[in-house]
């Protein structure tokens, strides 16, 4: 130490607001939200988009139609437990299910890169056929474009879907009220770990497979059991933590989660420990949160556990009153902390 005056207590000014899209703008966290709020909502302001839901519910000749769209860019296109095609079907089916809607018809549009192997495309298409059959939906229209080599990521798929809302009253985060029970349909993180395990640069043997699946059977069971559903949200990009924060902020309530109630399998825990990633922020493709009145909580849990895709359901927390909307996590040793939205991309740490 050359002298204590050498301690210059300084730090740089923030960089100018980014003028280019970064990967984190697509990560499902705070930057995605900023993009929606600052660019898309002002341009497309409509009542349905304002609800910040997975899909739009549109009254049509006495029925309530749900309409949604989603794009899939996962790399690699084939991974343990599924393909980009499975995600494209189940993702859109689940967006409809999260509106309380029975999925009916889907469209599928492909953007293919010059040089993409036809064999892989055949595998993807076959997995879409199987996933659609399992989900009970038809792929009724489609489109194909091919871009120059180097201008696309092999295969991108965009699907849109129409369904009919089957819940007696609207599924809407704004109906969430203090006291409600928060249910999670199963263990989290396996889709992310399955993808990470095959992505370039990361070598570990992992028996983990993606959880990609249609969630409609679980939602259907809740509706048939007469459960009053306040909110449904699939925990895709940004994971359970981000989904809970979105609900809290839209509903203007707070949520308290017991960390020890959140199911994580041993292989996913192991991978998270090695990589320094938090399963609560990992993307899932077959898991959802259901928020129901306290009085329906136990019955909803029992109903979900009776269905294959949600047999690992747990009641993970409660909705509470709360000044500023936020999500709080109770750690296993009893400490409380804020569970924030994902900020930027989840980055593997250094040491």
């Amino acid at each position, binding site marked *: *130490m*050359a002298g*204590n005056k*050498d*301690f*210059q*207590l*300084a*730090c*740089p*000014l*923030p*960089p*100018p*607001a*980014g003028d*280019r*899209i*970064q*990967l*984190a703008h697509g990560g499902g966290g*705070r*930057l995605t939200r*900023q993009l929606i709020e600052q660019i898309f909502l002002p341009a497309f302001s409509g009542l349905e988009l304002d609800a910040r839901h997975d899909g739009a519910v549109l009254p049509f000749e006495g029925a309530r139609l749900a309409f949604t769209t989603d794009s899939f860019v996962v790399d690699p296109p084939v991974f343990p437990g599924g393909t980009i095609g499975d995600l494209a079907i189940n993702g859109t089916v689940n967006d409809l299910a999260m509106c309380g809607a029975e999925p009916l018809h889907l469209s599928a549009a492909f953007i293919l890169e010059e040089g993409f192997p036809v064999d892989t495309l055949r595998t993807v298409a076959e997995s879409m056929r199987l996933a659609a059959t399992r989900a009970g939906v038809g792929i009724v229209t489609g489109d194909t474009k091919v871009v120059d080599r180097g201008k696309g990521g092999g295969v991108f798929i965009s699907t849109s879907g129409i369904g009919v809302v089957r819940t007696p009253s609207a599924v809407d985060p704004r109906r969430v009220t203090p006291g409600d029970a928060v249910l999670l349909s199963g263990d989290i993180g396996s889709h992310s770990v399955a993808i990470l395990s095959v992505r370039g*640069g*990361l070598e570990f043997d992992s028996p983990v497979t993606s959880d990609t699946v249609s969630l409609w059977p679980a939602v259907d069971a809740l509706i048939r059991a007469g459960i009053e559903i306040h909110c449904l949200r699939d925990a895709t990009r940004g994971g359970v933590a981000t989904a809970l924060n979105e609900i809290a902020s839209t509903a203007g309530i707070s949520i308290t989660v017991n960390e020890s109630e959140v199911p994580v399998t*041993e292989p996913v*825990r*192991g991978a998270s*420990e090695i990589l*320094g990633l938090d399963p609560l922020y990992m993307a899932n493709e077959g898991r959802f949160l259901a928020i129901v009145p306290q009085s329906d909580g136990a019955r909803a849990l029992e109903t979900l556990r009776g269905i294959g895709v949600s047999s690992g359901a747990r009641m993970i927390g409660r909705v509470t009153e709360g000044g500023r909307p936020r999500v709080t996590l*109770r*750690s*296993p*040793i*009893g*400490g*409380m*902390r*804020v569970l*924030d939205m994902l*900020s*930027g*991309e989840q*980055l*593997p*740490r*250094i*040491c």
Partner: protein
Amino acid sequence: MKYVDEYRDPAAARALISAIARVARRDWTVMEVCGGQTHTLLKSGILQLLPAGITLVHGPGCPVCVTPLEQIDKALEIAARRQVIFCSFGDMLRVPGSAGSLFDAKAAGGDVRIVYSPLDAVNLARDNPRRQVVFFAVGFETTAPANAVAVEQAGRTGLRNFSILSAHVLVPPALEAILQSPGCRVQGFLAPGHVCAVTGLRDYERIAETYRVPIVVTGFEPVDLLDGIRLLVEQLERGSAAVENQYSRVVRTAGNPAAQDAVSRVFEICPRKWRGIGEIPASGLRLRAAYREFDAEVRFNLAATGVAEPPECISGLVLQGIRKPHECSAFGIRCTPETPMGAPMVSSEGACAAYYLYGRQ
């Protein structure tokens, strides 16, 4: 999960919290040196469960946070070059330099890649002989051995297109700088377990003796930290200033001699600027003359930029444990993980990010 579950056991944690409450008769201020320890303290909510008289201040042990602005600016300059593949651990990508971050460089067309090991970067160099592959060698004594091995491997296999940008820093000189600071409040240290696993305890024994300060080498799980705090408070209460090893399942007294040898074959000690703190003599590592050709600063002929860090945030005080993150007027308002003013808001090991993520009210 073995070696994890027993160190997160709620009953064991509660027993240690009671034990600390029993032994602590006076108020004590102690520093956990490593950012990984800071995050566990906040993530598990330990800080709220400790007796009110025990204050934890958060040390400078976050390599991302202390990497100086000028090294980040050099990284940005290299990453912008067309022939370069710039490799880094993920944490570094969001840290702001004078003009944007490596994420911005990537968005602007730079080939910036996240790797999990320096050897991945060596492999990239081998597979891309027409490109220059540069690895951003940041970190404390923990990451230096693997980086040394990567440079040796590049040397042995005659790789002419691999180099590192070194921003390595050493823990003991930083602890001495903190102890010599006039505002120093720290009465004891929880020393960084993984650093000590490499270096051993010798430097810490010297510091404990010279400055009459107790040091407990501590792990990273909740039970480790509580056990470390208990041992430290016991020493403080009885006026002891010894080095104890709480993390003996990982740390040996002599450290890891093979790793130490690799580091000293490749690196030599140099003065290093610490972001927000200033230059600390003999606190960094640079490549030895024999390996100078693998030094990216030499290969790309980068001059010292001499950038000034405008006095805006208090990260220097935070990194020395003089102030807490939420005592900064910019905290959570003008300074957030999306718009970080200082590096401690960026890294998963940064104290400000830990407060923002887990403790914001």
